[in-house]
């Protein structure tokens, strides 16, 4: 049997899945500590060995693919002119490329903003601003101010096309390697982030991942196809849209609860028309990834208490102090696993808090505004996902617990008033933790990836 090895280089563990692409079957999984101190390929080799040895028969690994978030993932800063126009477009392009967006800067860059940029040391600056044929002066001024910082690193220039080459040249003179992509907002309210997203991924693969010094072996950089979060987004898109071999399941939302962050991915095939409800200035793209850096089950758990402390305290039936203690234990130990029912219950509550708040932030809210004159108008400030029919939970909590569906159900039941979150979706969970692997496999064979999803998520009877 020809088998594909799908690796996920995480910051703590390196996970390997062995998949039979013909059958779309997960054959084995194993993990080993990520060997960040020596060579990442050591941890991979250990996990791969465990996985193959768990099989009854020897297999031939016909291909090795990987995603990576080791060494801090892909760190990007987004620069634009207006905060909720080109800066927001740039931010979304970076998120959809699976990046960690370390800073979003808007307007004419001042000393404080440039200081912020120096502090976060992004691997890539996504430089936007102006519509095509629109603002040039302020865009070039920002390029000059960035260049004066001598930041080095890489820049993707996705600004006003009329001055993009000039802006790139200015950044090059400042010591950056700059490449030009299509404008992320070529016209007012028109979001076109694919070109910038692809450019970011290309720079990541060609320069960033190899430059992190994570492995001495050239095989590592050859295996890596994308940053880990991008694989989940790919899988989301594959689920909803399908591939040439099979149709997808339609609009879908994926809630990925991790130790440090909670990501929400959604993909809508058709934008629900909501007459009488006005669109935001920059309508969200059909495929959308949001990342909540303050919501997670381990490093992110103190943020959950900030966002949702009262609810968690009421539900946990424990003293505030003991909850705080439990949370601080989690925040310092990414690998910690609850030992008793009370801690397991708290994990469940934290997961509900993560999902509830991340979904509310991902989706739009309908706001009733009243101008000085005229009838009140309803405005939405983000995507309308009320009619999304499927919501999938992924992440360790769903793989290790039996009550994943309950967590999702309770989280969605807590949708904020006037939220445009899915109103009545079918819920299901990624119990075999296969989503990122499937997204990765899709880069090699979309049909196989879809078969894998169908089987492991029980979309069809296996």
């Amino acid at each position, binding site marked *: 049997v020809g088998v594909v090895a799908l690796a996920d280089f995480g910051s703590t563990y390196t996970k390997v899945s062995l998949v039979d692409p013909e059958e779309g079957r997960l054959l084995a999984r194993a993990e080993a500590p990520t060997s960040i101190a020596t060579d990442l390929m050591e941890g991979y080799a250990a996990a791969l060995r465990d996985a193959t040895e768990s099989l009854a028969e020897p297999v031939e690994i016909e291909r090795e693919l990987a995603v990576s978030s080791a060494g801090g993932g892909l760190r990007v800063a987004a620069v634009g002119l*207006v905060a909720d126009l080109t800066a927001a477009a740039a931010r979304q392009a970076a998120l959809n490329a699976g990046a960690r967006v370390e800073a979003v800067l808007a307007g004419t860059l001042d000393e404080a903003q440039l200081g912020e940029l120096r502090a976060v040391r992004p691997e890539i600056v996504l430089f936007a601003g102006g519509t095509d044929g629109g603002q040039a002066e302020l865009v070039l001024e920002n390029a000059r101010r960035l260049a004066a910082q001598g930041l080095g690193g890489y820049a993707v220039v996705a600004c006003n096309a009329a001055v993009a080459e000039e802006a790139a040249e200015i950044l090059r003179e400042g010591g950056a390697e700059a490449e030009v992509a299509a404008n992320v907002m070529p016209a007012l309210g028109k979001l076109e982030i694919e070109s910038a997203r692809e450019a970011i991924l290309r720079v990541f693969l060609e320069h960033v991942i190899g430059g992190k010094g994570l492995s001495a072996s050239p095989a590592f950089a050859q295996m890596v196809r994308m940053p880990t979060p991008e694989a989940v987004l790919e899988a989301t898109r594959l689920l909803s849209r399908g591939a040439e071999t099979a149709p997808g399941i339609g609009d879908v939302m994926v809630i990925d609860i991790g130790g440090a962050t909670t990501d929400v991915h959604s993909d809508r095939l058709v934008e629900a028309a909501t007459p009488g409800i006005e669109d935001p200035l920059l309508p969200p793209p059909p495929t959308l990834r949001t990342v909540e850096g303050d919501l997670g089950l381990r490093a992110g758990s103190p943020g959950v208490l900030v966002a949702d402390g009262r609810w968690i305290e009421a539900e946990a039936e424990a003293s505030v102090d003991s909850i705080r203690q439990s949370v601080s234990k989690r925040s310092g130990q990414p690998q910690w696993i609850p030992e008793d029912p009370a801690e397991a219950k708290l994990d469940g509550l934290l997961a509900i808090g993560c999902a509830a708040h991340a979904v509310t932030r991902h989706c739009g809210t309908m706001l009733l505004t009243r101008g000085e004159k005229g009838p009140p108008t309803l405005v939405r400030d983000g995507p309308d996902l009320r009619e999304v029919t499927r919501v999938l939970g992924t992440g360790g909590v769903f793989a290790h617990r039996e009550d994943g569906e309950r967590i999702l159900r309770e989280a969605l039941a807590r949708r904020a008033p006037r939220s445009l979150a899915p109103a009545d979706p079918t819920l299901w969970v990624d119990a075999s933790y296969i989503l990122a692997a499937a997204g990765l496999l899709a880069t090699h064979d979309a049909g196989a990836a879809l078969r894998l999803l169908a089987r492991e998520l029980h979309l069809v009877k296996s």
Partner: protein
Amino acid sequence: MAAGVEREPSLFCRENGVASEREWREKARTEGFTCTCMNIGLATWAETREGLEKIYENALSRGVRPPDRFNLIAERRMGLPKDQRAEAPQETGPVMMTSQDWWELAHTVPIQPEAADNTIGGPASVENAIDALQAGITTIGVLSQYSWRWPYFDDDVGQTVEVLKAAGLLAAFKDDGVIFDSYLEDGYPGVFHDYANYVGWAMVERYVSEELIGAALSPSWGGLTQDPVVKSAVTLALDAVNPDKVPLSYVQGDTIGNTPDFDANMAVLNTDVLFMKMVEHRYRLGGAPIAVPVTETERIPSWDEVATVQTISRRLEDYAPMVEPVVDWGKIEALRDELVQGGRRFFEAVINGLSGAGIDVRDPAQMLLVLKRLGSARCEELFGAGAPDPEYLRGRRPVLQTDLVKSTMQERERLLVELHERREQEAVRGTKVLVTSTDVHEFSAFLLTQTLAAVGADVIDFGINRDPEDIVKAVVETDADAVVITTHNGVARSFGQRLMEELGVAGVGGTPVFMGGVLNEDVEGSDVPIDVRADLNENGIETPGSIDRLVDALVDRRADSVVA
């Protein structure tokens, strides 16, 4: 539900010996007399009741037959469940609060009421329908108002279900002559660009009401059409797609030809009503024209203003038979046939389009809800009867443009010809002009984008209903050379002031700003909005007054910048 409804005849039906208004209208059709209708909705029900008495007495004292029917124009709270009406924000207009109010509605004078605005359509559709039926009312509306929103009721599914239940109740009394009324312009057709789509929409509503629910439907219409020939053709087309020959509940008088000059409006009134009467006289549709008081564009008409136009309407019944034989009805009928064909195309496109998208077109709830959510513009773009043509706003060349579109397109032609004659096609080539509106008026913004593009400007169409803050953001990103704003909602001064401030804050304060439209604003101490052009000019905003002069101003600006 229907079994619990105890009905009694209205005063009108009892006096005229008919079981329903439908029976009366059918009698009018057979015997050849014409009915009239009026809209009434004074500040409260008590005032409205008193107005009805006075109108009735006034007609008798003048020796004309009183109106056959009045439409109760209740205010929006009527759409809310009764227990919420008292607490909801009060607007101007009558509201039926008690069963006594309902009884009086049909028993104050022998003029048959229609329970019209806000009866069916909103969250209280079912209870309103029961109240209206029990009072003796046999024509109840308004199906098209299901597309409306009520404050803090954004459950469009629940609302649609209420409307369907109420319609089911009317269906139970279909054999007793109960009719479900729908005033087309209250729904999406009111903003359609093509009359053929009006007709098609009426077919969709009829299909849902009669075929799927079983309630007799009468499409009413007319308020947004000035051309009497077009109006006659559309009225006949609506009757032609009405297989059960349900009498047209009413034809609304023209409300767009009127101006603040009440005397001039007399011409609008006479022509409009005369044609409606001729159509009734010749084709016997069983409809009832509404004569619109000449003051209606300026204020809610008082009872005597309604009485005046009712008298004129009755007198015109004497003139209709004199003129009718010499009108070229062949032309009007040809137009009717074209509209009917177009209407059928629209209807078929709706049915095929929706069923192709997986909608169960035998389910009235799905039909209504999906169409509502698609929205008017999208419905016309998707299903419109006209051939695709990108020259037009909705992407299709209308079979017969609505009067609102026609006047807009005529104005566009006039401007383009004039600019062409002045050899100004290239006058502002390369100038980036951002065009937007402070409110929902799309036609002025359309004229601006069309004409500015014709003189070579790079038009940035920023849509309608924008805030000053949004405009500033757009200027920053596009580096627009000029901002052109049309406004019709009485906010010109404060809007302009805030815009100029915000442009300055964003560092793009030098951008020229032009405003046009209705440049006024409400101020304390004045009953009417005051002209604010001087304030705008003082703030640095130019007010050229017309599109021609706007182009001149842009040319001047350009010349200045070239010299500079």
